[in-house]
């Protein structure tokens, strides 16, 4: 039991790494949004091979009432933005469609008042 959970966490972090690279790597020719389903399958297969582990991602805004969407809360925003300033896609963050939509506009507002950057400043 303990072993599978350890494995799971390992593969999860790896999938994170890979998708980050994928942004401008092998799939750079495609749009960020178009390849969602495709990638999802691949991810699932990968994890399937390593011991059939698949964790269902849940929307943090749905599961935690305390966690409110607010463009003024830079701390909250930070967890949904990569260090390059990109908005983390839904397939990675696990947000539901509604909250992802709201998050997008919230991040864009926060960018306007310099709480979140448009691009990374290399700091």
């Amino acid at each position, binding site marked *: 039991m*303990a072993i599978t959970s350890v494995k799971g966490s390992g593969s999860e972090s790896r999938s994170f790494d890979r998708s980050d690279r994928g942004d401008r790597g092998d799939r750079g020719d495609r749009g960020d949004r178009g390849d969602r389903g495709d990638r999802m399958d691949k991810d699932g297969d990968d994890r399937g091979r390593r011991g059939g582990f698949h964790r269902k991602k849940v929307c943090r805004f749905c599961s935690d009432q*305390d966690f*409110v969407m607010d463009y003024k809360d830079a701390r909250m925003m930070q967890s949904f933005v990569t260090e390059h300033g990109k908005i983390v896609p839904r397939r990675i963050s696990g947000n539901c469609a509604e909250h992802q939509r709201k998050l997008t506009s919230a991040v864009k507002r926060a*960018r306007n008042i310099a709480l979140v950057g448009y691009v990374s400043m290399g700091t």
Partner: protein
Amino acid sequence: MANTASADIRAGYETTMITRSELSDDALKALQEKLAGVVTEFGGEIVLTEDWGRRKLAYPIQKESRGHYNYFVYSGKGEIVHEIERHLRLHEHVLRFLTVNLEKEFNAENFRKQRAEVHAAAKRREEEREARREERDSRRSYHDRGESSGDIQGVEISEE
């Protein structure tokens, strides 16, 4: 609140403005009072004001890397927004501002309550984060001492 006239359909607006950090407190206060005057002049009501203090900007605006944030919520008609934004645009020490229209059925009391809750939740989360960080640090120092086992995986498996 007192004047509950029938034509009391007031929308709520929230404005965040960034002023130059070298703008003196007195000048800032003068600006705030001017804006408050505008709101009352147009028959609106200031619901709440917050001073977020000087913060580092995520990116420089007009060569400034720090700015003083001010946030205020008011209710009233749309003309107020025009007037306030006009003032902000004319003010040379205002770097940036953003006004957001809150929902149509705006209730000042509810909004204040909500905002207080948001602050409380943020504080709670901050405390949780602090606690977790401490826990992690203590665990890390524990691992540093027991260097032979390497990482978490090795330890957990050996425990079983």
